[in-house]
């Protein structure tokens, strides 16, 4: 019999592909994105749609211009667009969202070679560029349900930027957080579209861990180290919990610090990466002039990833001492 296929072993492959992984991430992000649309209205949905569409179009155009295989089908551009949109306030002008998509896909991702080759997380880098370049457009925070007319004031501060209320009782001074922990958990606070609803972000994160898309190591190390440092610094469990639920910590820890291309390969490396993120976030939030530090911490650790990778290589089973490199 002739006409047989011949290939090296193995002759089986796991039922997994890049596009399937991206689809799982989209599914995991969906509940938090939906919550954002409920809190911040049709305007939020429009921002998400603009970001996704822009990212997909930029990705497709880049591949055409660069004369490379079309990769838009792997859905990674959809993930980037969705993540970027979730990291923007609902009131952001559409042109700013498009510029952000351009930075994410064209500059950060495709100019470095496309999927798997970028050194920084595209959505994080784009968010930082927009924050620094369009500061006022990027801080149009609105209260949940502002669109329904049921709330009086349209503008609101984010949990991290808002003033804490001071009061004295029985001669002792107290400070009260501007939001209750329950509001923080369900996401009824001001903030970016997709970062406020802790409940849905945790749900999505658990989904990714159960489906083995991400490992437990990064979120545990990130959130854990941040929580421990905050607890040591403030001495208050409530303040610690408030800090964990506030801002971009959860979306960052579950969805952005776990990006494959820009984070370390081994579990050891992921732990180092997560602790680094937690530490930098804590320092910026506690001592820096920005209220929020998650994006900066992840970007900084992205830059350190090659070094972390080098220092946390797996040690092969039964290997004798490694061969010294010729210097």
């Amino acid at each position: 019999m002739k006409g047989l296929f011949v290939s090296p072993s193995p002759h089986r492959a796991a039922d997994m592909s890049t596009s399937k992984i991206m689809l799982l991430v989209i599914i995991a992000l969906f509940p938090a994105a939906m919550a954002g649309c409920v809190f911040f209205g049709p305007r939020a949905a429009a921002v998400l749609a603009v970001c996704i569409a822009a990212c997909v179009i930029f990705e497709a155009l880049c591949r055409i211009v660069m004369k490379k295989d079309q990769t838009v089908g792997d859905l990674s551009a959809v993930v980037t667009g969705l993540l970027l949109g979730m990291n923007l306030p609902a009131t952001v002008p559409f042109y700013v969202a498009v510029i952000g998509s351009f930075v994410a896909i064209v500059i950060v991702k495709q100019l470095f070679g496309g999927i798997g080759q970028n050194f920084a997380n595209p959505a994080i880098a784009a968010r930082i560029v927009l924050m620094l370049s369009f500061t006022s457009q990027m801080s149009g925070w609105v209260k949940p349900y502002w669109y329904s007319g049921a709330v009086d004031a349209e503008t609101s501060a984010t949990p991290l930027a808002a003033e804490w209320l001071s009061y004295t009782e029985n001669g002792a001074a107290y400070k009260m957080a501007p939001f209750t922990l329950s509001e923080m958990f369900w996401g009824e606070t001001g903030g970016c579209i997709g970062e406020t609803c802790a409940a849905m972000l945790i749900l999505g994160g658990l989904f990714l861990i159960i489906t083995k898309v991400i490992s437990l190591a990064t979120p545990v190390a990130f959130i854990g180290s941040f929580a421990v440092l905050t607890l040591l610094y403030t001495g208050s469990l409530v303040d610690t919990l408030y800090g964990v639920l506030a801002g971009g910590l959860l979306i960052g820890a579950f969805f952005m610090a776990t990006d494959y291309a820009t984070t370390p390969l081994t579990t050891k490396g992921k732990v180092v990466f997560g602790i680094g993120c937690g530490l930098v976030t804590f320092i910026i939030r506690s001592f820096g002039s920005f209220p929020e530090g998650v994006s900066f911490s992840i970007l900084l650790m992205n830059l350190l990833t090659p070094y972390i990778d080098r220092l946390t290589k797996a040690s092969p089973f039964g290997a004798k001492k490694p061969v010294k490199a010729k210097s």
Partner: protein
Amino acid sequence: MNKLNGVHLSHNKGTKNCETVDFPLPKSVVIPMSQHMGAPCECLVKKGDTVTVGQKIGDTDAFMSAPIHSPVSGTVTDVIDFLLASGAVCKAAVIESDGLQTVCPDVKPPEITDKQSFIAAIRESGLTGLGGAGFPTHIKLNYDAVKTPVDTLVINAAECEPYITSDFREMMESPMDVIEGILLVQKYLGIPICKICIEDNKPEAIALMKKKTENLKSIQIVALPSSYPQGAEKVIVYSATGRIVAEGELPSNQGVMVMNVSTAAHMYRYTQDGMPLTKRRLTLDGDAVTKNAGNYFVPIGTRVSELLEHCGAEGAKKVLYGGPMMGICLYDTDQPVLKNNNAILAFKDGESPKTTACIRCGRCVRTCPLNLMPVLIENAYNAEDVEELKRLKVMLCMNCGCCSYACPAHRPLAEINQLAKAMIPRK
């Protein structure tokens, strides 16, 4: 429990209840002179010679080799240069069967009195590892007992590859042959402990072997988790004993000898009837098989095309020697059954999935039983960075295929590991 990384595969052991039957005697067989790891044999017969069953037709003075015997009686019609599926070329004897199966007068039970005569007899039996690698058994037995004393015999009955059930059938059909074979090795080599290691997806075999070894203190039955590649030598040694066979070492350096379960049983049968390795049990299965999937005693040298015809798999697009994870593709079904083929598998679909860009997900790193980093090996291979390849210990790769299997981008990582090995100059 000592556990290394691996992957979980669907078992597809549909033939596990198929009792082994004799495969119809082929009219003609092709016997390559290289069916084992090591030097090929010289062909001892020439065109026109008459041969009988069990007659030695190939042998050599080389150390690393095993003699080859005729599985049929009949006439040598030709001695040809033959291209094996592995890519090597060797001599092969084509023998036309006379259908009488006249047994060679040399075939008689060997006289075994001590270690030396035991090892000599095993060499004459032509026995090689029946599990897949085809390592000549007499060389494995002839380790240096002074430098590397062995205290544990690990019997490999993991059978971790999907589809294959030939070792399972060996245990179910002739458990006493297995045990007697083990006792022979223990007796003549002085190995105090034997561990029969079986994956826990074969509870029937575990129960049967436990029952048969109840009164034998020197033999233990170890149930291992069903995780591929549990049956790989370094993996099974670690799982069964916790010992690590380090870089450049043989299991005997760690006081262990690993032997396939069917090899042990065959060893015993040879000491009883003196019939060398001329036929073997193999599993015939795969999704292209339409009828008669099962286990067969097949004469070595039977053309695979006859097996495929028997099981209605003429429409197969991919035919393998061995399992889907480590099996070798046949380029042509006129290839014969070899000593180390524990299965012939036929599949309908032969095309490999399309390769996409690496996304650095790390699945290859997490599944590698030896903690290698295939993603970095691929980069170093593409950069032709030999020093980096050495640092990444690519030479340890045993080509189990977990990395390629797990890769969502379907990159041929296991293949690249083998190519990378070839890039490192030999000392």
